[in-house]
């Protein structure tokens, strides 16, 4: 028990350190000196990041010892490990290019990802037979590292777009850039909604009927805007659902999604009202000293570095393990298919870039789409599509 609580304290510490690092990287932007020399702010930011990373590693290995297996066995553990890899990937890319703006954008994403992870059950869980193998950590950590390095490409691509997209006229580009930013806000909104109702100990129990006409119970921990099929509210003084869903839809998850997107939209609108301009436009001054060529290069380099790692971890190691645990190396399980899709997408990215000369903005948009695919595979495939990988 000692070790387990030490482990979670280390994770808290890492979380806070990443937050602190964000502010230092922010300070580096305000620094008037030219971009080429790394400012003192950025240096401190980087050191804090490295300390945070060490603490994060501390969390990882103490939890590993406490549980007796690599902490990558459920959604919480995996997402936290992914965040750790993201910091590792950032440290790697930063030591090549020393661009502080990358820190300013990566660290908040890391903070957001850890917060997001902690919305899922956090206790140490024992391994089901299928997961009892050394390949668990070999496959999962390599795949996560590959995805993390590829995600840096998204961060660099986003910086590129914020700088490059012309905010003087509204159009497709400004819309989609706002959409990306709104998606990030929705994650914040999800965290706020979940945490607040959790804090209030909100609970509403429903009985409902599934597709086999069986009566089941479901407990909501946030108010039900979307209720289950033929849902009947059992708890007093709780909000009655506005709509019912068909039995196949997971009403509880859909409800959480509706809340997150709704509050996200409210937050986004609020930001727009306060700033009186698009968020993309509001962020523009932050990136004004950025060299477009440099972030384009970073975005591309991250793909080049991350692609082989991803292939090795998410396809090759995955196939070896699948052959051992599931008797076949490939079975068209949704997670497998989406790993293949990610692979094909980045293969197309590289061909477009190297042979068709898709540089700069086109390449940046592709990096954003690639990240969306990775996130879809990381989250949606586990939560929405049922398959062999649905551990959470």
């Amino acid at each position: 028990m000692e070790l387990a609580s030490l482990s979670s304290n280390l994770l808290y510490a890492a979380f806070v350190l990443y937050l602190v690092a964000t502010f230092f990287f922010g300070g580096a932007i305000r620094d008037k000196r030219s971009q080429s020399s790394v400012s003192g702010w950025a240096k401190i930011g980087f050191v804090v990041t490295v300390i945070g990373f060490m603490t994060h590693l501390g969390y990882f290995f103490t939890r590993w010892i406490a549980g007796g297996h690599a902490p990558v066995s459920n959604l919480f553990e995996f997402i936290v490990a992914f965040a750790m890899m993201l910091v590792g990937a950032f440290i790697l890319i930063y030591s090549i290019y020393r661009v502080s703006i990358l820190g300013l954008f990566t660290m908040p994403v890391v903070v957001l990802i850890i917060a997001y992870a902690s919305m899922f059950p956090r206790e140490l869980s024992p391994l089901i037979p299928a997961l009892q193998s050394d390949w668990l950590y070999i496959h999962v950590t390599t795949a996560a590292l590959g995805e993390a390095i590829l995600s840096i490409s998204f961060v660099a691509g986003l910086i590129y777009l914020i700088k490059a997209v012309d905010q003087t006229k509204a159009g497709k580009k400004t819309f989609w850039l706002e959409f990306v930013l709104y998606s990030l806000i929705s994650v914040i909104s999800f965290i706020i909604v979940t945490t607040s109702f959790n804090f209030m100990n909100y609970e509403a129990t429903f009985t409902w009927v599934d597709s086999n006409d069986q009566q089941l119970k479901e407990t909501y921990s946030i108010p039900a805007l979307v209720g289950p099929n033929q849902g009947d509210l059992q708890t007093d003084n709780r909000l009655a659902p506005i709509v019912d869903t068909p039995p196949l839809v997971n009403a509880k998850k859909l409800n959480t999604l509706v809340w997150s997107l709704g509050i996200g939209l409210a937050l986004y609108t609020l930001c727009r009202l306060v700033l009186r301009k698009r968020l993309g436009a509001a962020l523009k001054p932050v990136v004004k000293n950025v060299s477009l060529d440099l972030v384009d290069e970073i975005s591309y380099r991250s793909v080049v570095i991350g692609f082989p790692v991803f292939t090795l971890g998410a396809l090759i190691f995955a196939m070896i393990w699948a052959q051992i645990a599931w008797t076949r190396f490939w079975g068209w399980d949704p997670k497998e298919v989406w790993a293949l899709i990610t692979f094909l997408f980045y293969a197309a990215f590289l061909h477009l870039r190297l042979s068709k000369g898709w540089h700069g903005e086109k390449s940046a948009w592709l990096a954003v789409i690639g990240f969306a695919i990775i996130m879809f595979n990381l989250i949606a495939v586990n939560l929405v599509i049922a398959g062999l990988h649905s551990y959470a």
Partner: protein
Amino acid sequence: MENKKCTCGHINPYGTILCESCGRALTGEAREQKLYDMRYEGSARRSQTYNKSIIDKVWNFFSSVKVGIWLIMLTLIGASFGTILPQEFYLPNNVDPSVYYEDVYGVFGKLYYIIGFYDLYNSVWFIALIAALGVSLVIASLDRVIPLYRALKKQRVDRHESFLKKQRLFAQTDEIPNEIDLQTVRNQLKKKHYKINEENGALFAEKGRFSRWGPYVNHVGLIIFLVGSMLRSVEGLYIDELLWIREGETLQVPGTKGEYYVKNEEFTVENYGEESDPEVFNEALERVGTVVKNYQTDAVLYRDENNELPGAEPQLIELAKDDIQVNQPMKFDQFAMYQTSYQKDEMKAMRFALQNKSTGEEKGELTVDLFEQQDSYILGGGYKVELLGFYPDFDGFTEEGEPKSKSPLPNNPAFLFNMISPEHPDGEVSFVEIQNTMEPLGETDYKMTFKSLETRDVSALTIRKDLTLPVLGLGGIIFMIGVIQGSYWNHRRVWIQNKNGHLYVAGHTNKNWYGLKKELDLILKGTSIPAPEDQVEKNKK
């Protein structure tokens, strides 16, 4: 279709655009162009040279990177559709997909079934897409790698100045550098691991040429992989069988042509316990309930020594004992035997007592083995029970009133007994199913009372042989080598040439121009030699 001789004397194959040796433009068009895309060095690529016959057209179609990218994107989008609803092979065994999809997913499910997405990955169009991708891999690679290899092998140190001028990174000046500056540049180049060649005042530095072969190496790996996955249909290379085996049974291992037998000594399912396992898991166990710790079949493997002799009784020799667990298959010969599924507590035998209804007195007990029934069970003292009918998987009555069984498996056994006693020497008929007794021919004085049930576990083992794995493994390894080779190194070349009072500086790389430019800035820093400029960027402005 004849070879082209360049002014420099080198003989180039037909279709060459820039001389393989000196780099002079060989076509009028190329002479006009200020910049030339040097990706393939202006070498003679088949797809750029011929476009007459059908073969040319097919070749040109598949050699195009644009077509390749389209194929990748179509495969990607196609594959994603298969994840919307579960594929046919993930459905429960006993359901008919033609009704299942509509039943469970409504109109959308019906549509999904009709379009054929329920078995998307085996559909003709999907396999055709993959095949097209394979063809594209072969043709696009061949079209480029051979001419590129020739060109890179034959390059001269001093190139014609037009070749340098056509490079993307280029600068020229009339200021001739002194020997000190040149020496600085040489030292810097060496520091950056360039190989330097010099000839008649021309300096050529190159590094990482082998990374140019990376893409072709990884394509070879992919092709081997694709070929490997087709080999599965070759007789004898691939076996995939499922064996349901009850505790205590010894069965032939399917797929081994009767050579091997396996015995299931015991099957166990073990759950995590709050007492027995580390305390740290208690919280999780309390939240989710039971978590399985282990599925295990204690198996004994035998070889039939008489397998070769036709008609002989099997003579089993024990080969090995192993506990087969998930993630720990038992391996023998070229086979692996996996723990894949199980059924707990299959009914094996039922014990009944013959009881007098009015006195409650039991006249004796009998055990019906659900797999091997007797016609009658003699209890002594004039008491006897005949088994008139046995319905292992009872599923109601036919229209004629006959009981029926849905399968030979004892999932829901029912019995038609004739109970013979001294009072009723002809017997009384009783129909017994689980938790229900019927007396179809009138009320009886005796009844069959259920006493106990004997069960055993059934384990499902997958037997697999896959001799295509080494081929796939080889493909995977070659692919990884190629990807790493092409990704983590760059091919970079620098030319510094002093000709007729002009100094030309040019640089070329296959990727990462920004990086090369930075490197050149650093190498030429502090010398009189100008750092080459990106002509593509310059032209844009």
